[in-house]
Structure formats: structure tokens, C-alpha cells
């Protein structure tokens, strides 16, 4: 797996940095998305990811594009060292190129309410 880059909408970047809420995987860097990359939109709402099952091929680069309509959320895909905060009113984007197949759980890692502990999903790499 390689995390080539990550980006947050340019119009929000300064604000995000100012708030100190940028928390990305250790290998993630700010970079523009490649237009040919497949984009998967994910809504992080109380208390579920929609969709909660993501299908990606090994070696395929995808852009995970997050929004949170309610409260601050987190996305953590520990097996790929990938995480970000997802703030209401912003679009947050992560790039993922998985290099291993299998099922990998991701979860919200910002305690968001009564259903927080059930807020998770699965990345399936084939």
C-alpha cells in the first residue's frame, strides 16, 4: 500500500491548518487529485458511514471524499495508516492505493455520541 497524497479542498486549507485539525496518515501529503482517479464519496453522519462498505482493487488509486453533516467525525483505516478528521461544512479527501487484498475495518475515532462505537465500516480490497 502506498498513500500517495491527501488533500483538503483548497478553499478550506488555510482554515483547516489554522484550526489545527489536520491529522493525516504519516505518509500523506497535500497534493491535487489526479482526474483519472476514481472518487468514492463517503458521508460520515451520526452514527454511520454511508456507504459503510468500500470496494477497491489492489493497486488502484482511489480518492476517498468525506463530508460530515452533523458533528466532527474521524476516519481511521489503521491497516493502511490512514486517518483524517472530517469537519462539518468541509470536504476532506484522502488518496489510497492499497497494495494488499483482504477486508479491513475502518472506524470513526472521534467520540461522537451514543452510537459512536458502532460507527465503522469495511474496506474490501480484491
Amino acid at each position, binding site marked *: 500500500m502506498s498513500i500517495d497524497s491527501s488533500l483538503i479542498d483548497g478553499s478550506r486549507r488555510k482554515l483547516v491548518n489554522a484550526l489545527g485539525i489536520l*491529522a493525516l496518515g504519516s505518509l500523506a501529503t497535500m497534493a491535487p487529485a489526479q482526474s483519472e482517479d476514481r472518487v468514492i464519496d463517503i458521508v460520515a453522519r451520526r452514527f454511520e458511514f454511508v456507504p459503510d462498505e468500500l470496494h477497491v482493487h489492489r493497486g488502484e488509486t482511489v480518492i476517498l471524499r468525506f463530508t460530515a453533516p452533523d458533528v*466532527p467525525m*474521524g476516519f*481511521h483505516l*489503521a*491497516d493502511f495508516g490512514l486517518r483524517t*478528521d472530517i469537519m462539518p461544512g468541509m470536504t476532506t479527501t484522502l488518496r489510497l492505493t492499497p497494495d494488499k487484498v483482504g*477486508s*479491513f*475495518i475502518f*472506524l470513526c*475515532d*472521534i*467520540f*461522537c*455520541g*451514543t452510537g*459512536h*462505537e458502532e460507527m*465503522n465500516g*469495511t474496506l474490501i480490497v480484491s
Partner: protein
Amino acid sequence: MRGLDRRQFLQLTGVGGAVFMSGLGGAARAADSLPGSSYEDFFFVQLSDCHWGFEGAPNPDAKGTLPKAVASVNALEQVPDFVIFTGDLTHTTDDPTERRKRMSEFRDIVAELKVKPVRFIAGEHDASLDSGTAFKEFFGATNYVFDHKGVHFIVLDNVSDPGARLGDEQLAWLADDLKKQARDARIVVFAHRPLFDLYPQWDWATRDGAKAVDLLMPYADVTVFYGHIHQEHHHMTGHIAHHSAKSLIFPLPAPGSQPKRTPLPWNPAQPYRGLGFREIEAESKAADYALTELPVQKA
């Protein structure tokens, strides 16, 4: 204990489960290097993850388990020096009024403990939705230190930040406190979440916990006790031992043993299985800790 130390007593009487010896860096230290005159044998009790207010199939006796544990502590043959609850005193609720109601009820139940003092630390269910505001109203500060019979205890708060961070301010506070300690001081740290990456896939970690471990690493005799994962677990980061406690509401699966972090089912044939509390004995002569796991109720 006179003639027979407490560990021998527990082993001989069969009270509780296995006694776990915490192998610490300090244990390897020459006994004669200990400033023995300042250390005394004592023991305390750790209870964790009571989740008062929880209702559900994983524990059909959710309202009865905590009072039973309190009664069991009160029935111990010897009185511990203190009791500490390592977080998730209450089950989370989005309603601030209900949160305070649960904390009030919890406080009333544990007021039945005969031993004093009773100390508390917060869990994410108590503190993550309001930055610890309600917890502080009922139980006081979320990070603090105290000393007892030659051991320096440090309580860390890795839950008031909903993102599971200690934060730079608290880390600076920890660094300042540690500067006051001798490098061979006996130090015990309490936290709710593990300070190391136990299993981040299930959020069993503290995002900046490694920074706390780095600060503690120069000290020869450090042990960490925590909760959060609802099961006994023992881990070493270098010479620092980390011990998690069982829950008093429902057990969780071993890390990574099943796809998702869902409670283990209640077994009517073995009620309260996987639940319990622990005694921790600090011995002056060995500079280590004996952990004794106890059930909610005696069989």
C-alpha cells in the same frame, strides 16, 4: 501481613484467580538500592468500565453488577488502602441531564464502599462529549497526582479530548511532574485508554500516547494500569508494564479475534463471566506488583 505476605495468603486460600507478577524494570534493580525506609507494603483495588446506565443483552443484570462488586470489595478479608475506578463510570448519553443523573447514581452506589479514599478517572463515555465538564462536577479533576507509601501515582486523562489525545498541555504537565521524581522512583500511571497502540483498528490506543511513554521511559520503575478494553491484557513497552483491567458490565473480545468490536454474549450458565476487578499489591522488598483478578461475586 505478618508471617505470611498477602500474595502467599491469596494463593493459599484460593481467593480470586491467578496472581500475575508484574515484571518491572525496577524488579531487576538491586534490592539494596531501594530506599526501603520510604516504601511500605500495601495493596489497592482497581475497578473499571462500570458503564452505569447501560442496558442491553450483554448484561441482563446491568443494574445489579456494580452493587455486587461494591459488596465484594467490602467483603475482602483485608481492607485495601484505596480504591480506584479507571474510567467509563457511566455509559455515554447525548443528554447532559441524563449524564449527570447517571453520575449521581453511580456516586451514590460507590459511596457504599467502606474503604476510603475512592479515586476516579474518566473514560470516554464519561467525558468525551463535554470535555469532562460533568465528570469534574461529580468527581473532580481528570488528571492529578498523589503519593502513597513511597509510590508516586499519576492519573492521565486521554478521554476528555474526543480524539483520544492527551494534548500538549497535559504532556507538559506530565513532564514537569516527572522532573520532580528521582529516576528510580516507584511510579504508577493510571489512564483509561492504553497509552500504546494495542489495536488501533478498534480504537484501542491513545493518539499521542507514545509521547507520554517517551517521557516515562527514563524512569526505571513505571507501571501503567488502564481500562477501556474490558479484559485483562499485559504488555511491555521497553521496561514499562501496562496492565488492563476487566470490566464490570460486559467483556469485549480479544483484540482482532473477530471482525468487529462487539461485546461477548452473556452466558446464563456462567453469569458475570469475564467480569471482575483486581487487587494490586505493592511490595517494598521486591519493587514489583502482584495482580490478583477477582470475580464480581464469590462462587
